[in-house]
């Protein structure tokens, strides 16, 4: 298995791996190429092809000119909505998760295992079980069809993940460290700021990447609790594909798809290592 020379076996291995990799990249390549082809060009051929003229204007149209429903502002407002939901919800859920994870792993209090157990149930409970109650709660507190409502939902629901991530990381911190600080008179917050947070960057990066990707890509809550101009970009993309069903505009739509996927793809490229760590941390509970 240590062999690095090119025997027939190894050539076969490389061939298979490269073929699969090509198949995995093909959908991305197709969308990128289509985002640079004009609608007519796509209509005459297929979705798969090399651009004859580079139609950069697709990106401009997708960003700020495209019509979804009756407004023609492209996907810019929806990207802004997604950012306004994702950024605060990621920050809040990560910070609260860090505090909660610290409390259940190191500070300990009565009933902490119970509470923690219930919170982690949120990892499994299907979203559908919470759709109706959230509708009622958002309506009663006046946050239905607002971005603030989505921030609230993602913050509270995100706690299941963030508390789990942080707790699993913090249990490895030696308890003596906390005990010594407590004997010296340090309280809950002082220990958190002075000891826990400085040790936290590795897990906070994982948690932030995970939450950001999750919330940015979320669709069900976005489409259920918001409408029209308040929708996040995932919901707008679906509305957009319904709108172009009559007049195909695949070039512009491809550009919109790329723009919508760009933030999470960039995060994946920059922090892929941490992304994988989050995946496995979520899987191996």
């Amino acid at each position, binding site marked *: 298995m240590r062999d690095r020379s090119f025997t027939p076996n190894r050539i076969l291995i490389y061939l298979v791996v490269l073929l699969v990799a090509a198949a995995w990249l093909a959908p991305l390549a197709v969308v990128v190429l289509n985002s640079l082809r004009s609608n007519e060009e796509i209509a005459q051929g*297929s979705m798969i092809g090399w651009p004859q003229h580079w139609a950069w204007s697709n990106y401009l149209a997708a960003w700020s000119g495209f019509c979804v429903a009756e407004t023609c502002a492209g996907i810019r407002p929806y990207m802004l909505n997604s950012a306004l939901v994702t950024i605060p919800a990621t920050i809040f859920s990560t910070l609260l998760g860090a505090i909660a994870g610290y409390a259940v792993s190191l500070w300990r209090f009565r009933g902490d295992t119970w509470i923690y157990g219930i919170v982690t149930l949120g990892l499994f409970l299907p979203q559908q079980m919470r759709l109706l109650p959230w509708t009622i709660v958002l309506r009663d507190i006046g946050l239905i069809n607002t971005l603030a409502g989505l921030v609230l939902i993602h913050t509270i629901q995100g706690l299941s993940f963030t508390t789990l991530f942080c707790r699993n990381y913090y249990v490895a911190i030696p308890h003596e460290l906390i005990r010594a600080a407590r004997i010296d008179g340090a309280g809950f917050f002082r220990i958190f700021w002075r000891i826990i947070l400085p040790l936290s960057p590795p897990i906070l990066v994982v948690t932030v990447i995970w939450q950001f990707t999750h919330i940015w890509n979320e669709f069900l809550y976005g489409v259920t609790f918001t409408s029209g101009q308040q929708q996040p970009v995932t919901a707008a993309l679906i509305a957009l594909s319904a709108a172009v069903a009559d007049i195909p505009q695949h070039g512009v739509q491809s550009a919109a798809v790329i723009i919508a996927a760009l933030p999470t793809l960039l995060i994946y490229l920059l922090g892929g290592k941490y992304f994988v760590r989050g995946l496995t941390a979520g*899987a191996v509970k």
Partner: protein
Amino acid sequence: MSNAVSIRPDRPALPEWMRRLPEYLMIWVPLLLSAAHLVSFSLWTVWISFTPSTLVPVTGWVGLRNYSSVLASRNWQIAFDNLLLFGSAFVLLSAATGLALAILLDQRVRGENVLRSVFLYPLAVSFVVTGTVWSWLLNPGLGIQKLVHDLGWTSFKFDWLIDRDMAIWTIVIAAIWQSSGFAMALFLAGLRSVDADIIKAAQIDGAGPVRIYRRIILPSLWPITITVVVIQLQFAISTFDLVRALTNGGPGIATQLPALVVYDLMFQRSLLGRGAAAAVLMLLILLAVLLPYAAWRYVQRRRAAHA
């Protein structure tokens, strides 16, 4: 130096609980909100599923009537059959693909990091994007079939997307593309954690790579395999975005899945009681997967503790 009992005369004598109030608030409020909403929301949905609620939640009791009407509806029956087919095909194929990719990458392939990133990147993209892109590729008038026709092979046929019997397989394809990288990542971690000494000993005994994989490495992957299967099944049961973007349940209702039925009942047909019943049924399907898994994990942990 008696640090612990030092008296601080400059401090106003606040009662202990008041001094510690911010701490209690920061510990309890988020945790309690999170725990309480999970419990109360679930119970509330279960309760609604037993009421005659339609447009708005109402009190009352109809027993299992919502459940029987959901279970009797064609929509649910098709959704459930689809879930069985999609769930098993997707889980088996994506685990197999993930394992195959992990074994290939484990052969000390050059550029492993780049390849791993390629197989994993679909996970970073939303299901809405994945579904949209695959709906183009699989669309007979736009995608692969059209391309092959344009190249001259006009009798080529690949129209699963609009074929009632095959459409569910398009969802399997897109789901495998999206998430077999996840299986690969877990399997790869498992392959790398196999004790190198045992492998070396087997090599000295003259065992070839195939034999080593079959007898030593693969058997040690069982725990990871079960974890992969359970997580993928959990994903399959709640699949919504992918179908919504890829086929929207169509053609007709051929690719209906439970999550779409719930959404349809709750928000398109305003039958809250039935929608809640369908959501509870989804939870029961999920529990049928998770409870055996939890029991298995418990036994495993007990065994590890005794070992």
